[in-house]
C-alpha cells in the first residue's frame, strides 16, 4: 500500500486518526519524489554545507582515551552543527519538504528544546510560520532554548496537559496538526511517530553516519569496533548507526536514560525494564513503550529532557530484537559524571543527552584493547543544560 515499507519487522505502522492519513500519504509522496530529485538533494547538501557547517569534525579524544586506558575514542561532533545539535539536519530536510508540498506553517514538539530551536531556525531560513509545543516542565529546565526559539520568530506554546513533558508536547503538536493539516506540516524531530516519519528522519540524519564512517576510515584506516549513541526517540543514534549497519563487525550500542536507576522505576529505559516496557502503540507507532498493566503510558524520568520519553523509535525496536544493535542505560548520576569528565579532559561541554553516550564510553573503553576504536556520537552541546547541571552538581 505505502510507497516505502511502513514497518520495521513488527514495529512501526500508521496508528493515527483518519484525518491525518492523507497528510501522511502526501508526505511520503513528497519525500520519495524529493529523494529522486537531484535538485532537491543538491539544495539539501548545499544548506548542510553552507548553513549547518557540515561536515562536522571527528575529534580524537586523546586525554579521555589515555585516562580510561583502553580503546581509542573518537567523537563525532554534532555539537558543532549550527544550532548546537544534530536536530538541524532533519529540521532543514523536512522544512524543504514543506516548501515542496506548498504548506506554509510548521508545528513541532520539543523536549530539550534542541529540535524546537532547529525547527525555528529552519522556519526562519525558509520563511515558514513555526509553532513549537513544549511541556512546562521542560520549559523550566531548558530555559535558554525557549529564548532562542522566540528570538528566531517561533511561537512557543507551553503544554500543561498530562506529565507536561515531551510526550504531552507531541500530543498537542498532533492536535494542532489534525486541526490545521491542510496548510500545516508536523515537523517531527525524532525517529518516531507514524510512517513515513521514522524513515524520513533516519534518511535526513544518515549524513552523520555517512560522514563519520569516511572520517574514521581516513583517520585510523579501519572501521571502529564500537559505535555508541544515546537513545531517546533515537534520531541521532539511527543517524550514526545507519552508516555502519551493513558492517557486521561494528558493534552498535544505544544508551537509554536510566534516570534514578532501573530499580527505582524512575527512568526512561524502554529496553531496560521488562516490568514496565511492553510492545504497544503510542503516537502513531508500534514499539516498546513504558506503560502500566492497563496500557496507560507511564511517567518517565531523566535528568535529560531529550531522553525523557516513554517510547523508542520503531527501527531501534527491530534492531534490538534482531540483535543488530544492543541497548543499555546510564543513570542521571553517571551522565552527570560523564558530563564533567568530558569538560575536564577534552574541553567540550556536551549535552546531557550525549553525556549518556559518554557514560557508556567510560564504562566500556577500559575493557577494550588500545588498538580498538570507539566512535561516539556527541549529538549536542551542553550550553542549554547549564542550569540543570549547576543545580544537580551544586557547583
Amino acid at each position: 500500500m505505502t510507497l516505502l515499507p511502513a514497518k520495521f519487522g513488527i514495529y512501526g505502522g500508521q496508528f493515527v486518526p483518519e484525518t491525518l492519513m492523507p497528510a501522511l500519504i502526501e508526505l511520503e509522496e513528497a519525500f520519495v519524489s524529493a529523494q529522486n530529485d537531484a535538485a532537491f538533494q543538491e539544495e539539501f547538501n548545499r544548506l548542510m554545507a553552507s548553513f549547518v557547517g557540515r561536515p562536522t569534525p571527528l575529534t580524537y579524544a586523546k586525554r579521555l582515551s589515555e585516562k580510561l586506558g583502553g580503546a581509542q575514542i573518537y567523537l563525532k561532533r554534532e555539537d558543532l552543527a549550527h544550532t548546537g545539535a544534530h536536530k538541524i539536519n532533519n529540521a532543514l530536510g523536512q522544512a524543504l519538504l514543506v516548501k515542496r508540498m506548498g504548506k506554509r506553517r510548521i508545528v513541532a514538539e520539543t523536549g530539550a528544546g534542541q529540535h524546537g530551536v532547529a525547527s525555528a531556525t529552519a522556519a526562519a531560513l525558509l520563511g515558514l510560520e513555526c509553532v513549537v509545543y513544549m511541556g512546562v516542565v521542560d520549559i523550566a529546565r531548558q530555559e535558554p532554548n525557549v529564548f532562542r526559539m522566540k528570538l528566531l520568530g517561533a511561537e512557543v506554546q507551553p503544554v500543561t496537559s498530562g506529565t507536561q513533558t515531551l510526550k504531552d508536547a507531541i500530543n498537542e503538536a498532533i492536535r494542532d496538526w489534525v486541526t490545521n493539516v491542510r496548510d500545516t506540516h508536523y515537523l517531527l524531530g525524532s525517529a518516531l511517530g507514524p510512517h513515513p516519519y521514522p524513515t524520513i528522519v533516519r534518511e535526513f540524519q544518515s549524513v552523520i553516519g555517512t560522514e563519520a564512517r569516511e572520517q574514521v576510515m581516513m583517520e585510523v584506516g579501519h572501521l571502529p569496533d564500537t559505535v555508541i549513541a544515546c537513545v531517546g526517540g533515537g534520531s541521532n543514534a539511527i543517524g550514526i548507526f545507519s552508516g555502519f549497519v551493513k558492517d557486521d563487525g561494528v558493534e552498535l550500542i544505544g544508551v537509554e536514560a536510566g534516570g534514578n536507576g532501573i530499580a527505582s522505576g524512575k527512568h526512561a529505559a524502554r529496553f531496560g525494564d521488562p516490568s514496565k516496557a511492553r510492545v504497544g502503540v503510542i503516537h502513531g507507532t508500534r514499539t516498546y513503550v513504558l506503560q502500566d498493566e492497563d496500557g496507560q503510558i507511564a511517567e518517565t524520568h531523566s535528568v535529560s529532557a531529550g531522553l525523557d520519553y516513554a517510547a523508542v523509535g520503531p527501527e531501534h525496536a527491530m534492531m534490538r530484537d534482531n540483535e543488530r544493535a544492543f541497548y543499555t542505560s546510564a543513570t542521571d548520576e553517571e551522565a552527570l559524571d560523564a558530563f564533567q569528565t568530558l569538560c575536564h579532559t577534552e574541553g567540550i561541554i556536551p549535552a546531557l543527552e550525549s553525556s549518556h553516550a559518554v557514560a557508556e564510553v567510560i564504562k566500556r573503553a577500559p575493557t577494550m584493547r588500545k588498538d580498538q576504536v570507539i566512535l561516539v556520537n556527541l549529538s549536542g552541546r551542553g550550553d542549554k543544560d547549564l542550569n540543570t547541571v549547576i543545580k544537580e552538581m551544586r557547583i
Partner: protein
Amino acid sequence: MNRIESAFANKPIFMPYFPLGYPDLDTSIDVIEALAKNGADLIEVGLSFSDPLADGPVIQRATQIALEKGITVRKSLAAVAELRRRGVTVPLILMGYFNPMLAYGLEKFVCDAREAGADGFIIPDLPLEEAGEFESALSGATQQGSEVEAQANGVNRPSTTLRSAQDGELPLIQMLAPTSPNERMEAIARNAKGFIYLVSVTGVTGARASISDGLGDLIARVREHASVPVCVGFGIGTPEQAKQVGALADGVIVGSACVKTIGENPNPVEAAKEFARSFRNAMR
C-alpha cells in the same frame, strides 16, 4: 436484526458519548443509564487513555479524572455488563484508543466486551491501514464465542443470554474525515460495518460555534459509497446544531458538549436526563 440495525429504524438517531469512570465509576454508570432511558438511541461508551490525541480539552480532562479515580479496561467492561443488567437495551459502542486494548489482549478484549454486552468498537487511532489485526481478533472472538455458546448449551440451540442479540461479529466502526480523498472514502465506506463515523471537521473533539458549510456535500460524497448509515460527529454541541445535522445525516454524535454539561452539573444524572431529552426533542 442486531441492536445497531434496530437502533437505526428511526432516523436520525441521537448518539451521545460519555466516558466510564467520570466523574466516578458509579455516577458514570447512572449517567449512561439515564441517557439510554431518556432518548439516546445509541451510546458511545468512552474508555480512558492517558494520551488521547484525537480529543479536545473537555474529553481530555474527563478521561484524565476517570484515570485518576482508577478506571481500567476491566472495570469499564464490568460497567457495560452492569448497564445491561439494569435493562439498558440501546447499542453500546466502546470508544477508546488502541494501546489499552493491546495491553488487555485483543482477542480477550473483544471476547470480554462481547460477553459484557457491547455492540461494537470505535478506535480513533486505528485507520484502515492498521485495522487488520483488530478485525482478526473480532472474527476469532466470534468463532470462540459460538464454540463457548455451543458447549454451554450442549446442543446447537440459540443462547438465551443477552449476547444472543448479537448476530455475527461485532463491527469495528470506520471513521471518515473531510480530508479523506474520494478513492480512500470509497475503500473505507465500501467495507464499513454497523455505521460510518464521519468526522465533520478537521480537528479534535469539541463543540464548535457553527456547523461547517460544506457538511451537506461531504455527507453526499460519503453516501455515494456507503451501504450503512452515516453518522456525523466532532463539533456538534447544541440541540439546534443536532437538528441541523440530523436533517442531513442518519445519526448525530455529541461528545464534548455531553461530557461538559453533565460533568459540570452538581446532579449529573438529572443533567443527563435533561440533556438526552433536549437533543431527542430537537431532532424529532
